[in-house]
C-alpha cells in the first residue's frame, strides 16, 4: 500500500474528488483550507489579504498498482489549469489496521 498526499488550490476540490471517484479510490482524508507555498514557482497560499488563495489537501492510501494511474491523472489535472496547481507526493505505508 502507498500513501498519496495531494495538495491543490481549493478551487480544484471538486475535480480532485471527481478524479478519486473515477479511479474508484474510495478512501481518503481531506483537510480543507491548508496553507503552503510551492518549492519552485508556486505562489504562497495563506488566505491573507496579501495572498488570499488557499490550498486543500487529501491523503489517500491506495494499492501499489493504482499509484501510477493516479499520479498520471493528477498530472493531467495540473495540465488542465497550471495556474491553480496540484501536487502529489507518494510514500510507503508500513502497516495499517
Amino acid at each position, binding site marked *: 500500500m502507498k500513501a498519496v498526499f495531494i495538495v491543490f488550490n*481549493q478551487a480544484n476540490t471538486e475535480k480532485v474528488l471527481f478524479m478519486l471517484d473515477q479511479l474508484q479510490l474510495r478512501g481518503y482524508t481531506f483537510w480543507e483550507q491548508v496553507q503552503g507555498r510551492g518549492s519552485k514557482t508556486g505562489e504562497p497560499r495563506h488566505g491573507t489579504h*496579501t495572498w488570499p488563495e488557499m490550498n486543500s489537501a487529501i491523503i489517500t492510501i491506495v494499492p501499489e498498482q493504482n499509484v501510477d494511474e493516479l499520479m498520471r491523472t493528477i498530472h493531467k489535472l495540473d495540465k*488542465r489549469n497550471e495556474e*491553480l496547481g496540484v501536487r502529489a507526493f507518494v510514500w510507503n505505508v508500513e502497516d495499517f489496521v
Partner: protein
Amino acid sequence: MAIYQTAIRKPITTALIFVAVLIIGIFSYNKLPIDQLPEMEAPYVSVMTSYPGANSEEIETNVTKILENSLNSVDGLKEITSTSKDNVSVVVLEFEWGSDITEAVNDVRSYIDMVYDNLPDGCSRPFIFKFSSSMMPILIYTFTAEESYAGLDKILNDEVINELNRVDGIGNLSLSGSPERYIYIDLDPQQLASYNVTLEQVGNAVSSNNLNLASGSVKMGGEQYQLRVQGEYVESKEINDIVVKVNGNQTVKVKDLATVRDTIRDITLEEKVNGKDAVRLIIMKQTGANTVQICDDVKVMMEKIVKKLPPDIKVDIVRDSSNDIKNAINSLSESVLYALLFVVLVVLFFLGRWRATIIIAITIPISLIVAFLYLYIADSSINIISLCSLTVAIGMVVDDAIVVLENITKHVERGEDPNGAATYGTNEVWISVIATTLVVVAVFFPLTMLGGQAGILFKELGWIVTISVVTSTTVAISLTPMLASKLLKGKTAKVNNKGELVVGNQEPNWYEKNIIPLLNKLDIAYATFLRWALTHKKITLFSIIVFFIISLLPAFMGQIGSNFMADQDQSSLNINIELERGTRVEKTSQMARQFEQSIWKVAPEVRLISTSLGSSDDGGIASMFNQTNNNKIQMRIRTTEKDERDRSVFEIAESIRKEFDKYPEIVTYEVSTSAYSASTNNVDVEIYGYSFQETNQVAEELTQIIKELPGARDITNSREKDRSEIKIVFDKEKLAKANLTESAVSMYVRNRVNGMACGFLKEDGDEYDIVVRLKEERRNSISDIQNLDIPSPTGGVIKLQELAEVEEYWCPPEVQRKRRERVVTLSITPYGVSLGELAGNIQAKLDKMQLPEGVIVNIGGSFEDQQETFGDMILLFALILMLVYIVMASQFESFAKPFMIMMSVPFAISGVILALWISGTDFDMVGALGAILLVGIVVKNGIVLIDYINLMRDRGYELNEAIALSGQSRLRPVLMTALTTLLGMVPMATSTGTGSEMWHPMGIVVIGGIIASTIITLIIVPILYSIMSRHGERDRDAKQRSTFIFMNLKDTLDEDRAQDKNEQ
C-alpha cells in the same frame, strides 16, 4: 458558512429573497407621498393674548413682558420674538428645528399658567397657537364672472366648496373676496331726528319683526296641531313696511327713514384677477396629506364642477404648489434615470461584457428600492432631498459589486468553473469590500446626527446613502456571486483528438480589439508617468502645491458667493405694495389698476395677476396670510412656464422694481420671487433699542445707506409708520351728568358707523345679514362723527360732541421685540449678489456708523441661518474626517497611511472652488452637501490605491516598483468609481427644469471636486506614499526574524547525543 457560500448553494432562496425585497420596496414606493422637501414641522408656537382697551405700550409692559420673562425658560427655546399692538399681544417662540412641538406646547401652557395671575384683570386667557404645514395654501383658484358675479358667493359655496370637501385629505377651504349678499338699511339722521326715532329703535323693530317661533300645541277634538308664529321675512322688500313707531295714528315705517338695499357687501376686501372682479378659493390640506395627490384630485373634480357652473364664470389657477413639486420631482427623476444610464454605460465600457454589466446593474435598483423602504418606514416622502440622495447613491452602490465581480472574473478566466470561481473569488475580497463600505458609512452616518434646519434635510441624505451602500454591499457578497456563478461562462475548453487541451474561442471581439488596447495604453502611460514622478518628487509636489494655492485664489478674492439655499424660478412672483397710510380703499384700488397696467407693459411674460387689497374683518384662517390693508396691495403673479420665456423671474422682478420706482405714491414695495409670501433669501438688519425715536432714526439712516449698496433690493422696515387715527375722548363728568357710560356710548357709535346687526334674511337655507346704520355720506367726516346722535336714557338725544372730544391723533406704532428687547428689522433681498456678500457689505457700513447709546445693530435673517448651518457643517466635516481617519487607520493598521489619503481631500476643495468660480455658482447648503459627499469618494479612491500598493509590497515588490505597478493595475477601478459618480451628477448640473436652481450647486461642486481630486489623488497619493514609507518597512517578518538568534548558536548536536548515550 459564509453568506456568499449559502447564496451560491441556494440560488433560488437568494433570488427570491431579493425579489421579495424588490416587491416590498415597490409597494412602499407606491405608497410614498410626493413633496417638495422632507416634512419639516415649523418649530414655532405663538401665544396670543388680548387685553381690550390697552395701547401697544401698555400691552408691552403689562402682558408681553410678563409672558416673555416666563416663557424664556421653556426647554429647547431658540428665540423669542413678540409684537405688542393695540389690544393684542403676540409672543412667538422659535424652537430648535426637529424638536417635539407637542411637548413644547405643553411646556408653554404650564409656564403660562404660572404667570396667568400676574396678568392684568380683563386680560383674556392666552391662546396658544401652533403653526402647521396644513395652514399653507396648496392650491389657489380664482373665479371671475360677469352677470353671475352677485351670486358668486352662493354658487361657490353650494356647488364648489361642498363638492371639493369630499376630496380625501383636503383641509380648510376658504373664499376670499366673494361678494356676500347683505341687506343694508341706510338711515338718514335728519329723518330720524324729525320723527324722533333712534337707530336702535329701527334695529330692534327690524329684528323683532323677523321671527319664527314654535308656540306650543293646540288640541282640537281628537287631533293635535303645532302652533307656530311665522313672521320671518321672505324677501327684503318687506323690511320697508316694518313699522318702527306709532305716533298717535301716524305710523313711521322703515321706508320713511331709510333706504333698504338688498345688495352685496360694501367692499373692504377687493379681489381682482387681471383687473376683473374675482373671488379667490384658497385650498389647504390636512397635515401629512399628499399635496400632489390632493391637487390632482381637486383639479379632476374642478373640471367636472366647472361644467355645471354658469358659462360666464371663468376659473383659473393662481398658485398650484403641486405643479412646482411635480416639475421639480420630474426633472430630478429624469436626472436619476440618466445617472443610472451613465453608470451602466461606464461599467459596460470598462468591463466590456454584457453579462457582467447586467449582474452589476442589478444592484442599483435593489439598493435604491431599499432606500424607498426606509422612506416609507420613516414616514418621509419622495422629495428633492431624497431624490438627490438617490442620484448620489447610484454612483456608489455599484462599486462593491464591481470589486467582487472583477475578482470572480479573474478566477473564471483562469479556467475555473463559475461555481468555484464565485465562491473563492468572493472569499478573497469580501472582507475588504466590507471595510471600504465602513468608510463610506463613516462619511454619511454622521449626517444623520446633524441638528437644526439643515439637519432635517441632511438626515435623509445620511440615511439614504448609508442604507443603500450597506444594501449594495450585502448584494455584492450574496446576489452578485450567486448570479456570477449562474451567468458567467468559463472559457470553453476542449480536448482534441490528439489529447491536447484546446482553449476555444480565441477570436477577439470588437471590444477586445478596440477598447482593451486603449485602456491598456492608458494604464501603461500612467505607470510610466508615475515612475517619472517618483524620481522627480520635488518638482511634482511643488507644481501640485502651486496649483492648490492658485485654485484657492478665487475664494480668497471673494469671487465665490454664498447663499443659504438658492432661490428657485417657480414662474411666480409675489408683490406687496404699501401706499401712504390712510389712503382710502377706493383710491388704493384705482392705484392697483395702474400698477397692473405697468406690469403688463414691462413684463409681457406675465399671464395672470391676482390682486388683493383692503381687509376683510372676518376672513377666517385665510386672512392670517393676507397682509393687505386699506393701503396695502398684494399681487400674486403667474408667468409663463420657465422654458417658454427668455427672462428668469428674477429679471422680470427687477424690471417691475424699476417701474415701481417711478411711482411717488408707493411708500415701500417688495417684489419677491418665492412662491410663498415670505422671501427665502434675505438679510435682516436688526436694530435693538428702547427709544422709538432713536431706533427709527438709525433705521432710516441705514435704509439710505443700504439703498446705495449694489444688489440691495426690497428694503422693508418691520416697524409700521405712525398712523393717524380719529379718537373719541370722553368727558367723564358730562357722561355722568347725561346718565351714560363709556361702554354704552361706544356701542351707540359703533352701531351708527359700523352698523348694527339685526338678524338675518333667510333664503334657501342660507342666511344673509341685515345691517342698520347711518347712510355713508353722514358718517364720513369728523364733523359727522361729532354730530352723531346719542340717545339718552332720559329720552331725547345728545350730540356726541357734547360728551366727548373727537380728535385726530398719531397712534404709537406696534412694539416688536426680539430676545426680550425692542427691535426694528430691516429686511433686504439680494439681487445679483450673494447673500454673504450683501451681508458683508452691510456689516462694513455698520462698522463705520456712529450709533446712539443703547442702540445695538445685528445682522440676522437667512444670513444668520446660513452662518449657523455652515458652522454646524464645519463641525460635522471635522467629525467625519476623524471617523474616516479612525476607520482607515484601523484598516491599514497604520497612523501614516490615512494621512496620505486625506491629503487628497484639500484638492477636492480646490476643484470645488474652481468649478464654482468658472460656472459662477454660489456656494450654498446643497453645495455643502456635495462637498461632504466628495470626502467619501475621494477617500474611497485613495483606499483602493494604497491598499493595492501595500499588497504589492507585501508580495515582495520594491517600493517604487510596487507603486508603479499598483497604479497601473488600479487606474481602471479608480476611474470607474470617479466616472460613475461624475456622470451621475452631470444631469443635475446641467438640467434647467423647474427647481433645478436648488440642486445645481451640488452637481457643480461634485463634478469639479471629483475631476480635480481624482487627477490629483492619482499623483499625490503615490508620491506621498513613496515619501512617507521606508524601504522594507512592510516586511514585518524580517523584523520579527531579526530577533530570532537561535541560528547563531554553536552546533552541539553530536556532543549532546554522545552525552545522552553515556547517560543511558
